[in-house]
């Protein structure tokens, strides 16, 4: 059993302590917006925030996440208002298949909370998620749109 605080809600989940946080979020808490891509913290599709920091949830165990504030893509909008990254993603038509975009959006949201006006170099360093459709151009443009708003 584990107690996880996800999107401001406490979940008491019947999981082993070494279960990757990704699978506890997806299968036990039932929040499927966080995606499985590789399971070895390479692709970033499973990115969530732990105490506001972007982390790859496939590489963190449930026991490591206990006591921390976990935010998933479902918790990014507050009170029905989309996060500015989500709004920019819609306005700029960023996603193609969209599968990597939950993780991409979470990574970008974390970057912008740390650096509200990131340079291209900041983006290059912070955003290391894989997108096989190749949306990078739109990702970069959308980040700059938010930063200049």
């Amino acid at each position: 059993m584990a107690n996880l605080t996800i999107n401001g809600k406490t979940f008491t989940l019947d999981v082993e302590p070494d279960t990757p946080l990704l699978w506890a979020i997806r299968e036990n808490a039932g929040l499927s917006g966080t995606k499985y891509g590789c399971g070895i913290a390479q692709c970033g599709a499973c990115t969530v925030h732990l105490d506001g920091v972007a982390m790859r949830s496939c590489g963190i165990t449930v026991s490591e996440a206990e006591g921390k504030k976990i935010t998933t893509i479902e918790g990014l909008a507050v009170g029905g208002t989309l996060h500015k990254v989500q709004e920019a993603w819609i306005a700029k038509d960023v996603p193609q298949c969209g599968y990597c975009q939950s993780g991409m959006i979470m990574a970008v949201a974390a970057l912008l909370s740390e650096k509200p006006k990131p340079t291209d170099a900041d983006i290059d360093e912070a955003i290391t998620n894989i997108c096989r459709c190749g949306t990078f151009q739109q990702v970069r443009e959308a980040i700059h749109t938010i930063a200049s708003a």
Partner: protein
Amino acid sequence: MNKHVSPKMNRRAFVIGSAAVGAGLAIGLDIPFGGPTVVRAADGSPEIGAWVVVRPDDTVVIRIARSEMGQGSLTGLAQLVAEELECDWSKVTTEYPTPGQSVARKRVWGDFSTGGSRGIRSSQDYVRKGGATARVMLIEAAANEWKVPASECTVARGVITHKASGRTTTYGKVAEAAAKLTPPADVKLKDPKDWTIVGKGLLRLDTADKTTGAMTYGIDVKLPGMLNAAIKDCPVFGGKLKSYDEAKVAGMKGVKKVVKVGDTAVAVVADTWWHAKTALEALPIVWDEGDNAKVSSESIAKWLAEGLDDGQPAYVGNKNGDAKAAIAGAAKKVEAVYSYPYQNHATMEPMNATALYTADKCEVWCGTQNGEAAFAAVLEASGLPAEKCDVHKVMPGGGFGRRGQTDYVRQAVMVAKQMPGTPVKLLWSREEDMAHGRYHPITQCKMTGAFDANNNLVALHYRLSGQSILFSLRPEALQNGMDPAAFQGVAQSGEAAIGYSVPNLLVEHAMRNPHVPPGFWRGVNVNHNAIYMECFMDELAHAAGQDPLEFRRKLMGNHPKHLAVLNAVAEKIGWNTPAPQGVYRGIAQVMGYGSYVAGAAEISVTEGSKIKVHRIVASTDPGYIVNPAQVERQIAGSFVYGLSALFYGGCTVKDGKIEQTNFDTYNSMRINEMPKVESVMVPSGGFWGGVGEPTIGVAAPAVLNAYFAATGKRIRSVPLRDQNITFA
């Protein structure tokens, strides 16, 4: 989507039926008997032809048979229907008919297959007619109500107007009546110059849910009582499952059952996928790997290299003059051997499907590029007839050709069949996905070019050796054993024709099919053919002491459309002006999927092996452009996919198995490695070409030719990873 097809009507049944719907009764009585039946969507709204449903609130539901997988065809197809329908774009939504429904209605929605960049180009004609037909019926319904000639009525954004009497109505108000009309026998489509919705870079219709986590991909399907399965197929293709020790994992947490899947695979079914995967990893499995376990990349390369020898049999795909004789008598000749490896599609979402099997029904939920092929796989694997099966398409997390195959669908049904009444979601691990791809085919190519004393190219011999996709996947499409698709990009004519005229040309293919299963991988045979031809053209230009662009232009006089896109990128990148200090350029062109494309790259190289791509320019002429914003994204995405394959891709074989296991050994480009792609769209009209794939052909050769310009070194094999060349 449910359908309620009325039986053949008599007057009495019709009145009752109309009354039950509660609208359009009086008008309906004017309809001649024996007319078409009204087909209704799940919410009761009527179809106005198979492609359009109009709801009372004026919402227009457009049916989409092809699959959206990120390429934007769903929005583009809706634009094509809406253009002719003259509806209000802000009130458009879409839905997928199921393959089962389509089969039950004599394939009223046509082909579901979404590959070969055909999503739009192969359905544009009939979906536009679907929109136009609905428009005619809706206007006629209004005209009938007003008792005026339909020709006096006009429509804009779903509002019908009879100017003379000052009356207006909306599509939603006349839909019931329109649904009862006989569709016009023929409709006239708009002149492209009058398009107002098609040709606009409208926002996609499916974005919002992709930003909130709400979009349901195959991996997200949830059904009541559903269990989860993890699977391992024999890692050597062609090998079999010998035995496994279920007792070792039976007591593990969450495990429900261990099942054999065909002759080659075993799956663990558990409460959660994590439990299933954990138990599968603990399961002792013995494989019967068979003879293929002796195959390696080295043995494949050796076998393919033998096929480059003229003494070996080969199929001739394109020929004029006598290339061999011209080469023998030439003043100068240039020869080079290139190779291209296996590539995995590596869609972000690994293969998966959810199946529910009972004795009299089998349903599957999955992402697929071909709903009808998935449906056929369900029929075959379940043993049930068509009327007892169906496939519910959900959003695929990438396709790139991989999800046109149905191996994962078949597996899911085979697992579910052993758990009757319980829905089971079968999900591959990334490792399973890497080990069981349908790989980009492996080939080598020997090219020989010959010049006369004045450095004119007089002969070109292009000899491919390697794998045929059609041999493995569609043997019925072979022509006397020859795979015509092997010549994509270097064919004499058709949708992937060569862009050069050489007095003596011989293009041939020595077919050699290793045991690793090939598949249609974005760009398919255009990929390697464009690399081979365009890099060799660059070699020939340098051998002749000529500028690579000018050298090509001289051979392209009979190929004006190929030339036009090449000229467009040359102009945009400033080919005739010096590049910035330390920056070098490469250029390439190809035709594929009915479209003409060209690309140019500016790169710098440090330490001889660290490449920075500064600029990419890409031009495309697909005839018509439905949504330029989406075309731009497909062009840029093609470069990301193509350059990922060039730098990081490549699957190698050891002991009959694929060696790469995950993104750590099969990497993909990140944002810091990818410059902006400047696209130049030059649609010339009069034909419909594809967009999703052709551009990938020019991605690698543009960069490789720039690498030569920078270093004087030719790279003739892929990936760069294996030559210790990487991004700066």
